[in-house]
């Protein structure tokens, strides 16, 4: 299953993953320069993350060629594909924020 998901992400979701990583990197920089105690920034970051997730989902469903049966014949549905990708991305973003906040406190 891991190989299947890895192949799917690398073959068809590179742009979506880059967009999500860019949003994460941009907001990490924002937090680093403005401080981690600006609470409205967290809401803004969440809005941008959700927008990026929505764009990824919309581009797959509306713009990409139909791949429904290609995924489903592997026993994988869209919920699994997007769920795994977005949960991993969100966890990575939170982890990066925690590490940056800790490092900034030391500096």
């Amino acid at each position, binding site marked *: 299953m891991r*190989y*299947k998901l890895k*192949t799917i992400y690398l*073959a*068809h979701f590179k742009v979506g993953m880059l967009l999500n990583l860019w949003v994460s990197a941009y907001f990490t920089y924002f937090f680093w320069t403005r401080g981690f105690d600006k609470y409205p920034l967290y809401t803004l970051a969440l809005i941008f993350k959700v927008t990026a997730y929505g764009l990824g989902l919309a581009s797959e469903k509306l713009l990409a*060629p*139909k*791949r*429904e*049966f*290609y995924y*489903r*014949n*592997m*026993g994988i*549905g869209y919920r699994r594909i997007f769920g795994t990708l977005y949960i991993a991305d969100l966890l990575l973003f939170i982890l990066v924020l925690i590490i940056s906040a800790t490092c900034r406190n030391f500096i």
Partner: protein
Amino acid sequence: MQELYIDSASHRFGSRLILSSVFLNCKVGEVVGLLGRNGSGKSTLLRIIFGSLNPDHMHLKLNGELIRKGYLTREIAYLPQDFFIPQRLKVGVALKLYVNRYKSELLAMKIIGENLNTPIGELSGGQRRLVECLLVLYSDSTFILMDEPFSQLAPSAIEELHGHIERLKPVKGFVVTDHYYRQILAVSSRIVLLHNGCNYAIGNEEDLILHGYLPDRR
């Protein structure tokens, strides 16, 4: 005995009733031929079983257990009417994604072995269809749903496909639908006709004439 079973399948597209309490079952070792006129609901029924279409009502069971979507069990594979593997994907990668148990058998086949590094979109239409058929047939799933597998294939490739189905019959169950009804009659252990939203068991070609699937030329 492993069995795929769907009962009371009903579905409407808008106000048009496509399926009305349809029943279909398939056991391992069986090839069920599904016939019907255009728009009779053959593909709809297969898509409902596979889980890519939510019906108005159905009971779907796999080996006695109630399931909601066939594909989530990984025991059901579906060959749609159109190409389904992205054209940039190499044949070798597709093989790795779909086939584990019968990988060596597929690698021994000329059309697979010689094209492992070829993107599937670079094959001719017939070759691409045959490769997709083989990947679905030899996939790890026990039940194989095939929607018009013989269209786009040359007669020799159709014969080859018959051979593969016969070979895998002892360990898999098949539901096959196509408009080449002679091919379906040749490969199937039993025939089901979808007509007016209902299913009819078919014994011979006379029954197909009786239900209006074939023209009466007598």
